[in-house]
């Protein structure tokens, strides 16, 4: 769960007709952005920024909190809170600027009444059952919560126990869209040609807006890190060639080394299943002896049978390689390994051998 600063402007929470509140809030966001470029608008009058990096740079979380309050003091009064997860940070800001210690979120939330979770029906029901504080609610076993209170209950329970930081109603994606749009239309590029509308946050098509709402809902169900997007990058193995970034996290597009040559790269086609962690495997010859690769990059015997994660043996019908790869040979973290493609009667795998042990890195799914 991300550690977040929340900047809340109590006077700007409600949008007025002539848009003064919105414009003032845009100024606040810009003032906050001077300290960290990754400011996210949560809803009108509330924005958040990641705590870890900026706090370290400016000398501590309380110092940065003070700086943020000073920077925005001539625009409006703000409350700043910091905690693990958006929900707790928001509550910390609302209760007058508390710094909740790392992983102290459940203890911080425990004394609050269950009503703070924002679900009226759930709160009523819990109150009737005699469960009046978030701490009491967190103490219930998860399976009971799921059985009795459904998906909303689970989402609240995950927040109460500190396993998730988000609830469905916390973010208003449409408000963020509007605020970002206001900022873009203000002309941050004076004199130049009209800025190209950003594909996603600027010119918002109906399809995109619907997708944004859905994905935001999913984030509230299973946490913001649960929804990811794939980005490609350069690398030798299939696992290094893609990374998954949290959806909606503001992060620069780094096409690092995508077009660069990577000697030792496995030729296309790319495997459709890349295991998040390589699966341990055993490769034996017809005599049942385990295979290995010599220092010159040759197999010690002809592969006969393969077993992945101790599953039943399947016969190797064809194979290619091994292709040795000597990574970071200049440093101490030097890795000598070799990759091999193996077709078995069941699956087709990309194998990796390192220090005599075999792994299934990817599967041609």
């Amino acid at each position, binding site marked *: 769960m991300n550690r977040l600063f929340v900047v809340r402007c109590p006077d700007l929470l409600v949008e007025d007709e002539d848009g003064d509140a919105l414009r003032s809030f845009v100024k606040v966001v810009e003032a906050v952005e001077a300290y960290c470029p990754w400011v996210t608008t949560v809803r009108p009058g509330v924005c958040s920024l990641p705590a870890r990096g900026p706090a370290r740079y400016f000398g501590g979380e309380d110092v940065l909190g003070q700086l943020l309050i000073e920077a925005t003091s001539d625009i409006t009064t703000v409350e700043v809170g910091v905690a693990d997860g958006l929900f707790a940070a928001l509550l910390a800001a609302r209760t007058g600027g508390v710094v909740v210690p790392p992983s102290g979120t459940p203890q911080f939330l425990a004394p609050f009444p269950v009503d703070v979770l924002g679900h009226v029906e759930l709160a009523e029901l819990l109150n009737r059952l005699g469960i009046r504080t978030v701490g009491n609610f967190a103490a219930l076993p998860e399976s009971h919560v799921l059985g009795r209170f459904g998906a909303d209950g689970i989402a609240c329970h995950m927040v109460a126990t500190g396993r998730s930081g988000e609830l469905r109603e916390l973010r208003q994606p449409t408000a963020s869209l509007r605020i970002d749009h206001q900022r873009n239309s203000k002309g941050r590029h004076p004199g130049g040609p009209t800025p190209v509308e950003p594909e996603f946050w600027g010119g918002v098509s109906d399809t995109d807006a619907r997708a944004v709402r859905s994905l935001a809902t999913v984030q509230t169900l*299973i946490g913001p890190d*649960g929804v990811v997007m794939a980005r490609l990058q350069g690398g030798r193995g*299939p696992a290094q060639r893609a990374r998954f970034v949290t959806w909606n996290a503001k992060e620069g597009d780094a096409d690092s080394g995508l077009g660069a040559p990577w000697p030792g790269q496995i030729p296309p*086609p790319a*495997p459709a299943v*890349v295991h998040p962690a390589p699966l341990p495997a055993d490769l034996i010859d017809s005599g049942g002896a385990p295979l290995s690769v010599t220092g010159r990059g040759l197999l010690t015997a002809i592969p006969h049978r393969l077993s992945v994660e101790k599953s039943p043996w399947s016969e190797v019908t064809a194979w*290619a390689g091994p292709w040795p790869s000597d990574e970071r040979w200049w440093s101490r973290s030097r890795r000598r390994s070799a990759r091999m493609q193996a077709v078995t009667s069941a699956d087709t795998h990309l194998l990796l051998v390192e220090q005599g042990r075999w792994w299934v890195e990817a599967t*041609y*799914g």
Partner: protein
Amino acid sequence: MFVESARPSVPKGTSRERDREALALLAERTRPVAASQTRLLPVLAPLAGLFPDGGLRRGSTIVVSGATPGGSAGDGAVSLTLSLLAATSTAGSWGAVVGLPGLGAMAAQDLGVELARLAVVPQPGVAWAEVTAALIDGLDAVVLCPPFAPRPTMARRLVARVRERRSVLIVVPGRAGWPEHPDVHLRVSDMRWDGIGSGEGYLCRRRVTVTATGRRSAVRSRHHHLWLPSATGEVTEAHDGSVVGLTVGAAVTRLARRP
């Protein structure tokens, strides 16, 4: 005027129930008459023959199963599923993949998927059905690899949601299985890799047979031979000896239906 004309068919009940029914009827009647393009999500040309309409019909559920009966990582189902998403994502639709922790992003892109419009929920956990339902609400194509065996009621509810929201659900049952009959069932079989031998060459392309069966207009089963992936990582038709035929079961059904 719609309410007036709707009145005769409104069933009797409490006033609120009646209002709701009337509203539903109204919504149905005022829905814009969809052109054939908006009823269908496009698929790549080599895959069009698998579907009776030549594309993914909105509101339908598709099951993709691989060559290994119990499902395994390398049974071809993932590649076929990703290739189904390709044309819709380049046409501007959003897609999502739920419950596949090892999605090969490189392969997805090579098959034609626009990664900027593909959301991945690798580990939905116990809330997988809720997650899928939320995605169905807002995305055009949702791929579900159920982490646990779905209960029939749960599956039926998701199928109903897909029909109501006019999106497309592609289920890769794997080991968990899928208790509902899909509109179209795609099966991968006869996989054969080219270019690899006993310690020589490398994996170049894979020839697969895809069999499509289904209900209603899709009862005619179709066999298609594809390179999945081809030497460049795309999906292309494998021309030699491509057969479009009838399986015995479907043929019998057709004969029986003949007046």
